[in-house]
């Protein structure tokens, strides 16, 4: 990436009020291609609100979110036309929910779940769609023999991997993840983290990962934002923030982690 290249996504002063209650306040940051940004903070700190705001899922009360489109340069995601925005959401962007059931179509097979985004952008060759689905099952370390099984027959960790495959099949440029390893056992979580790490590095993806788990943040993200009461209280390189936290809240967060 050449220095001075424009960021992929720029948030400026993103603020969201739920009536009078602030969800997130004055959040600004840039993210470049290939970069993983972690958002940490306790429950209710506004992490998820902010993630929804920057991923075109929740219009902020004020502030702008600019995305560098492939052909037309930077564009405010809430000012572009709805068809363009929805197309971006199905192609250039991915969103991985904490609960895989929110991100999967539970009534259709694993293969159809992966193929859906391809079909949504016009793929009309069954054989090719199936091949792509098998390829992605393999990439997320799932048995391709289970391609025709329904998602509810899979374990939580496998459902999460399926959700990731479903998002990555259109080669998005940025993926938003809300506690992607949230509800999983530690062993399953470790495997998923490792997978995510590899995928992000190999595909040169940008990613924004919301997590309350500092170990997850350290493992996956290049940079961190620490949020508290809707505001970013500290930001920087991941190891700076975790090894040398400066804000009282960051210090509290880091010192509260249990080390087995």
């Amino acid at each position, binding site marked *: 990436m050449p220095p001075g290249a424009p960021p992929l996504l720029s948030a400026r002063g993103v603020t969201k009020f739920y009536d009078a209650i602030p969800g997130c306040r004055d959040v600004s940051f840039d993210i470049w291609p290939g970069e993983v940004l972690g958002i940490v903070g306790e429950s209710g700190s506004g992490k998820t609100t902010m993630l929804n705001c920057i991923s075109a899922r929740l219009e902020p009360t004020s502030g702008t979110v600019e995305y560098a489109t492939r052909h037309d340069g930077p564009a405010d995601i809430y000012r572009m036309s709805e068809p363009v925005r929805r197309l971006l959401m199905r192609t250039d962007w991915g969103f991985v929910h904490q609960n895989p059931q929110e991100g999967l179509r539970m009534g259709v097979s694993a293969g159809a779940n992966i193929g859906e985004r391809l079909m949504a952008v016009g793929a009309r060759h069954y054989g090719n769609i199936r091949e792509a689905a098998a390829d992605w099952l393999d990439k997320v370390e799932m048995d391709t023999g289970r391609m025709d099984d329904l998602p509810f027959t899979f374990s939580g960790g496998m459902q999460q991997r399926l959700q990731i495959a479903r998002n990555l099949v259109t080669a998005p440029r940025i993926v938003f993840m809300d506690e992607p390893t949230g509800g999983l056992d530690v062993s399953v979580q470790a495997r998923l983290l*490792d997978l995510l790490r590899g995928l992000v590095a190999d595909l040169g993806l940008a990613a924004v990962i919301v997590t309350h788990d500092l170990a997850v943040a350290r493992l996956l993200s*290049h940079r961190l934002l620490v949020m508290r009461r809707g505001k970013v209280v500290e930001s*920087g*390189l991941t190891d700076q923030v975790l090894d*040398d936290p400066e804000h009282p809240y960051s210090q509290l967060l880091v010192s509260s982690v249990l080390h087995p």
Partner: protein
Amino acid sequence: MTAMVEVEGLAKTFTLHNQGGVRLPVLAGFDLAVAAGECVALHGPSGIGKSTVLRCIYGNYRADRGRILVRHGGGSVDMAAAHPRGILAVRRETLGHVSQFLRVIPRVAAEDAVAEPLRLRGTDPQEARQAARAMLRRLNIPAALHRLAPATFSGGEQQRVNLARVFVADYPVLLLDEPTASLDRENREAAIALIREAAGRGAAIVGIFHDAEVRAAVATRTVPLTAAREAA
């Protein structure tokens, strides 16, 4: 002879907000210049701030004041002021840091962990893995362990994986924080050989070596640290 690392007026105070706002001044106006081929040993009692210097140079500690210039890609980067992406670029190409602890990544095999710095530079995966295995062998990690994740390794083995990760990548600048702390004699010798080789090829090295024997074997110069409270 141009300095590879140039630290000027480095100051660092820790404020512990959750312990009554205690302020711990560690560095106040620390200077250091390290040339290519030099191995500088930081010296002083425990807690004086030796590791803090290394971490400020590496960028995981933020300097309060001062400049930390590292020669990188034909220019120099001030690690105290660089953008995070700039710091990551310096770490990828120029700056290797052996910390006292290996940060184990679950499920990643030792050879892959060691190959990672090369992979980040875009080296072919096969080639990177071969280089990693060769480095692990030099540090006496048996081949049977190469494919295993280091989480279950002994402390000494983990430390050697940690060393291998850094020495595999031929960084022009090396920061070594107690690189031989938990090693037995045989492995200490292997580490000393690696450090001398690195200096021999022109790397600038800043290290903390508690073991006097090791220090004598590798250091070309010793820089004493004094307490910041007195210096300030």
